[in-house]
């Protein structure tokens, strides 16, 4: 996927200190951990070899080995990049805590919404959820936000229930 590189123009001094190499190292370590956990979990599958000669563990083992190979490939790529000392492509400012905090809040708020979806019902829960998000990301436009949140929640409910999609009605009588 090639994403537009709008953000990359704003490099700062920090970003020049090979943060990508750092990121790649973390990916490498994570990949190795995943491979190890996967290998371990594979040993937990009970083996009852009936029918096919391979059983349920063979393909997973192959995958585990492939993941190790891919990790090796990544290591080679990192090594090659360091050797040629290619100019680092613009680094995204990964460690910007302020933005991450907002996103974490969105994720938590979404989880809260999911938790309340069945008790409150789709329409009420969605309206509250959307209104809060819009209040933050589309600040100051109270009327427009409230209208969109309510109209969307009600409208999509009617539309999708008509289309036989199962949505929780919750506190509303209909």
């Amino acid at each position, binding site marked *: 996927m090639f994403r537009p590189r709008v953000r990359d123009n704003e490099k700062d001094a920090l970003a020049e200190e090979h943060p990508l190499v750092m990121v790649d190292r973390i990916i490498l370590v994570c990949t190795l951990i995943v491979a190890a956990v996967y290998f371990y979990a594979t040993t937990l599958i009970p083996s009852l070899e009936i*029918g096919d000669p391979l059983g349920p563990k063979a393909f997973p083992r192959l995958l585990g080995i*492939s993941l190790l190979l891919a990790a090796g490939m*990544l290591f080679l790529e990192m090594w090659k990049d360091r050797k040629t000392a290619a100019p680092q492509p613009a680094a995204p400012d*990964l460690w910007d805590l302020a933005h991450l905090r907002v*996103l974490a809040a969105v994720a938590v708020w979404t989880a809260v919404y999911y938790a309340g979806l069945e008790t409150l019902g789709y329409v009420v829960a969605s309206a509250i959820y959307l209104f809060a998000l819009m209040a933050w990301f589309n600040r100051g436009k109270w009327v427009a936000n409230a209208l969109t949140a309510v109209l969307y929640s009600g409208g999509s409910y009617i539309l999708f229930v008509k289309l036989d999609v199962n949505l*929780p009605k919750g506190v509303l009588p209909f």
Partner: protein
Amino acid sequence: METLTHILNGFSVCLQPINLWYTFVGVFLGTIIGVLPGIGPSAGIALLIPVTYGMNPTSALIMMAGIYYGTKYGGSTTAILINTPGEAASVMTAIDGYQMAKKGRGGAALAISAVGSFIAGTLGVVGLTLFAVPLTSMALKFGPAEYFMLMFFAMTAVSTLAGKSPAKAMISTILGLMISTIGIDLQSGQPRYTMGVPELQDGVGFVIAVVGLFAISEVFTQMEDMTKGVRPEIIKLEGKLWFTRDEWNRSVMPIMRGGIIGFIIGVLPGAGGTIASIMSYVWEKRLSKHPEQFGEGAIEGVAGPEAANNSDTAGALVPLLTLGIPGGGATAVMLGAFIMYGIQPGPMLFQNRPDLVWGLVDSMYIGNIMLLILNLPLIGLFVRLLYIPGGILMPLIMGISTIGLYGINGNPVELYIGLLFGILGYIFRKVDIPVAPMVLSLVLGGMMEQSFRQAMTISGANPKIFVGSAICLVLLALSVLSVALPFLLPRLKAWREGSDAAA
């Protein structure tokens, strides 16, 4: 002769009012999804799957295909007017299209991309019509070993061509395969990697994964941009929405060439619309008498790539329909939809359900005509979508995603799984791991394991079966080639980086 009858019968299927309606809904939604930066065809199709449960499969698939090729039309509008591709494959359109818009030729750029898309899109469907049947007769010779190698080839090609780093894409592919092994093993009945969660016994629903990986993660990415205050400037569309005779003469050949490149790239797994449009752009620049105009608003640089990324969609449907193996993210989601309706695309489908196959293919001729109309006189309507503030749009996409996640089984646990995939997708984007390979392997994983085990059962656990036939050997050679290709084409890559920086 029989095929010709089937092709003509396909028109009687797709001209039924109900199917015409769903073609329209598909291309209309496709244009909207294409215009909106943020959600692409994969997420769009995945979000619609729960809605299509009650529909007859032919209509549902016609609509999904409409979304797929419709996004390519819509994506160019955003590329031209705000210099951001509305859809990944329109990156190249942004380069010269935006420059044209700045010079007041935005109307011409939009018109040429609509007309070019139409011509190339139709060319692509003609190609699909012609190539489908010969390929199915070959596909009938495929046994489990051949299918395994074919999927292997599709995955290596997607891994090496989907992103900057083949290793990261490979990691993404294998993680997807690993996730697909979660759930009860079909042959032995043993639960695998379910961690005691009953919802995981049926495996991770691929719609859930796709909605998370494509839609929710994109919302996170865009919300982050919003908190940073990145806001693109929208160029107001002025002047007539048509091109001059001279502009047309300059565009005809690029459209034809782009259409052919796009179709060929589309048939091959891995590369997809983005690569097709890059290749078309490079080619047009080489052939041009005025290469210095490229990047400054050359209409050839809009016409060629736009044509390429539209005929690509028809090309991408060739392996999906004839072999049952997708070559990229969006077609992988479509395969998932096929499977949910209990339809296995592939050579047998052409024999058993010619009405469905040809109804779908023929609907694309009609869909392209509808798109031409939607994207020329009515383009002004779609441009208005760009004025919806992100602060409203992104929450709404979250809302629609919730319907998509919950609507499948009505199980709240799947909402959280979707959210986790969203967070995973966001992290992947941040660290430049492409998500499309993961989606492809999620969809193909189960089939791949089954054909692996069937082949091994046939051969008595002798892995030589995977190199035991000519087809297997060719596929193996192609896989090796696809791994080597990125090293053979460093010049293209260097050039692309240069143009990215200039954009």
